[in-house]
């Protein structure tokens, strides 16, 4: 079922990937221009020199363009945060595509993403804020460990203990992140903000190993892809002449990004399946009878009718 959903949603994955590529290009362009302007564009070999082994030209470009790059980086960071929020539109679109029984199209996904953007943005921002506070507290705890570690411990033991504590602390932060993802799924499936959050909490709390474990698996697949591609790209060595190398590197990198998106999509589809089978009976998980922002169309209202119980059994499915 999960694999079928993902296969059916492949156009939406491609759509989300293209959106990410575009966002990446917007963020990267000023930085790339500023870096290459430090001599590389006037060199007969172009910016291939920046990728030469030994890093002589790269360190020189960073030295010469340091101040400009720092300013550009600030701007790019701001743009990245903004685009992070904008990326909720294709994210919601992807969820819609994964959730629907029949294939719709980009305009439908976009409409749905735009309609749900205010609520998903609030959740997304709140998650980052909560995680930030949480990490701050966890950081203080780690500092405390370093200060109070028994003197007979060796430094590796202290570091590993601090790392272990940090990982333990990361579990609630991870829980927050997973709840936000689950709640977004619920939003897509028609729940109100409060109901979506409550149901997401119950769902995540009742199946933490399945949801967290599958998330970890998808994340590890993404990390493995990134590392593997880094090694392949290193072997291709774009500092050497030949546009085929450049094309090869582009394809490898984008394959990694697409692979990461696919792994994430499989995970999301799995979570949607879990949500479908979840019979959370706690109150407050009621769904909006009609999504006011988007007129229900295609398979979505049908499932709302099928899975959304009447008001007397709120949230139960």
């Amino acid at each position, binding site marked *: 079922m999960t694999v079928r959903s993902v296969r059916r949603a492949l156009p939406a994955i491609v759509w989300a990937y293209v959106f990410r*590529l575009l*966002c*990446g*290009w917007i*963020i*990267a*362009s000023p930085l*790339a*221009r500023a*870096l*290459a302007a*430090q*001599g*590389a*564009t*006037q*060199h*007969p*070999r*172009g*910016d291939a020199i*920046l*990728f030469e*082994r*030994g*890093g*002589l*030209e*790269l*360190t*020189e470009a*960073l*030295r*010469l363009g340091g101040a400009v790059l720092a300013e550009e980086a600030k701007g*790019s960071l701001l743009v*990245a*945060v903004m685009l*992070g929020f904008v*990326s909720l539109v294709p*994210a919601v679109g992807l969820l819609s595509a994964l959730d629907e029984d029949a294939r719709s199209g980009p305009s439908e996904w976009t409409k749905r993403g735009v309609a749900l953007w205010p609520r*998903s943005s609030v959740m997304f921002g709140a998650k980052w804020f909560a995680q930030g506070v949480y990490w701050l507290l966890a950081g203080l705890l780690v500092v405390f460990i370093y200060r109070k570690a028994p003197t007979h411990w*060796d*430094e*590796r*033991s202290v*570091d590993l203990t601090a790392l272990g504590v940090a990982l333990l602390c990361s579990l609630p932060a991870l829980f927050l992140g997973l709840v936000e993802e689950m709640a977004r799924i619920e939003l897509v499936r028609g729940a109100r903000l409060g109901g979506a959050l409550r149901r997401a909490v119950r769902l995540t709390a009742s199946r933490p190993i399945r949801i967290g474990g599958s998330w970890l698996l998808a994340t590890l697949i*993404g990390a493995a892809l*990134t590392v593997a591609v880094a*090694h392949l*790209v*290193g*072997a291709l060595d*774009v500092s050497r002449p030949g546009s085929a190398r*450049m094309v090869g*590197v*582009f394809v490898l*990198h984008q394959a990694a*990004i697409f692979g*990461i*998106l696919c792994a994430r999509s499989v995970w999301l589809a799995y979570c949607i399946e879990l949500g479908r089978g979840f019979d959370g009976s706690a109150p407050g998980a009621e769904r909006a009878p009609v999504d006011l922002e988007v007129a229900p169309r295609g398979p979505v209202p049908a499932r709302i009718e099928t899975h959304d119980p009447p008001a007397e059994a709120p949230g139960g499915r």
Partner: protein
Amino acid sequence: MTRLRALLVSLGFALPAAGSGGSADPLSAPSPTPVAPDASVPPRIASYALEARLDVASHTLTGKGTLTWQNPSSVSTNELWFHLYLNAFKNEQSLFLRSPFGAGRSGSHGSDFGYIDVTRLAVRELGAENLWPRAAKTSPGDADDETDIRLPLPREIGPGEKVNIELEWTSRLPSIVERTGYSGSFHLVGQWFPKLAKREPDGTWAHFAFHPQAEFYADFGDYDVTLNVPRGFVVGATGRRVGDREDAGRVELRYHAERVHDFAWTAWDRFRERRERVDGVDVQLLYPPGHEANAEDELEVLRDALPHMSRRYGRYPHPTLTVVHPPEAARNAGGMEYPAFITTGGPWWAARSGARAAPAVTVHELGHQWFQGLLASNEPAWPFLDEGVNTYAETQFMQTRFGTGSLFSLGGLEVSDLAARRVFAIAHGHDGAIAEPAARFATFQDLGALVYARTAVALASVANAWGTDGLDRALERYTRDQRFRHPAPKDLLDAVRAELGDDAHDTLKTALFDKGWVDYELGAVDCVGEQKPAGVFDSESGRTTVERARAADTQACRVLVRRKGTLSFPVSIELEMASGARSRAHWDGKGNWTTLDHEGSDRVVAAIVDPDREILLDENFANNSFSSRAKFAHRTLERATYLAELFLGALGP
């Protein structure tokens, strides 16, 4: 911070004013001739036989012993000068600690003070009287510092005369600031005994207060040291262990080292130890628990570096080498050199990080066994002679051993040790001269960039321009001639002149002493098409009409190359034609500019000065090239876009 330090320096903390032995004109002053000029029979000017007992709870040493000293100069002396280096950490009025902005290389004041109290000093040949009460209480010209102490003698000690000086003292170690101190039960014991200043052949004493940016200078001698530590403590020290004895819960270890100018040791009850014979040398590696991977990395690099350095700079002369990797809590003890004893450093995961910091530090400190250990230059007066030349030796080895990823290599990104050092060398290039006494640098950052990095980059530029083999030969000559001696800058420059010629010598001298700099620039590439004149021409044979040609018959191109700055290196200039053909020309680099003229059917479309980036001192590589076909930075954009996509993936939904 910079201004205050500059003020302190200007107030008289410059070392030469304290009699560092730096000559007024260093370039006309070769190294003083030692008592025994034959390098195979090194001089024993100051030999110590010492006993010390370490109380690990109070971090206190109780010591006594005899210093046998021979007046190496042609002049009698009625005084002795002693360095009491540990008094640098006695209080916050010492020259070392008085700056509120931190001290020394680490920038740390430490949390606990240290000091040395001499309780008895008698010169056997002058009677049994304790002479120490006669000693000055403070350093000359500095009522707050107690690191540079003059002791007047009841009678003169003549040239060549040998005396035995009996010493008794108590030292308390500071918490680790750098080079010496304790952290918990870890003890790094350096500069722990009253150290006689070096007397130069002309009769001056090279004495100086301990400045936070400076290091040491001393005469060669033999050391016979007996250390008494609690049982269970693992000890490493300069020299070979020649005896050990247990008594009442303590052990007594006797070490012997010959032809050295210092003695350092360490004791910790948690050291792990590895021993290996490398190139005929017994290497003892001491490291904290959990650092097994670092230890293997460090031994691995030593297996190559020790024979490499011995081949290049003369045989390592000692039977032992102790390598100490301090625990992270005592990280400021790392990266220091004493004869036959070095400290390295790095966190326990360093070996897995992709960075080669621990091997680089190990190689650097090993290099000091030659550049300061054997060529015992005056570090406070000419720090570039040991730190700078040694950094070049380090980068050369790292390049040989690890290639282009000698500093960092991970996921296809490789950065070399020398490329990273060049960044600092160029950034600070105009902040001061390289060849300055340590105390004259405004900040330690300046010293680091100029003395360490810029010297190495200058030497690498000379090697690339006039031949790496030639510079290797020059350094071989320098290290062979100055082995067990105290070289001055002129000795290094003379060796360069002998092997590479006057141009290399003059360029290096300017780079070292005169803030020498250079920037090669591709000024312009101009091409004009040349055609047969068109029009109607009358001649004796009649009227002819020459049509205007659609394309030029030949191209006349002129490439203008400029050299800015005070240094001149010979460089290559590469021209690229429209057809893709390339050619190279050579410019001796003399003069402010040169032009290359090219005529032919092919047009010059690009030019690069120094295409192989040999002149690393070049201040700006960005202006070295011109291309009429400006390139779109698609590789950079592709890589940056990928990284941004990954970032968005981590940040976003």
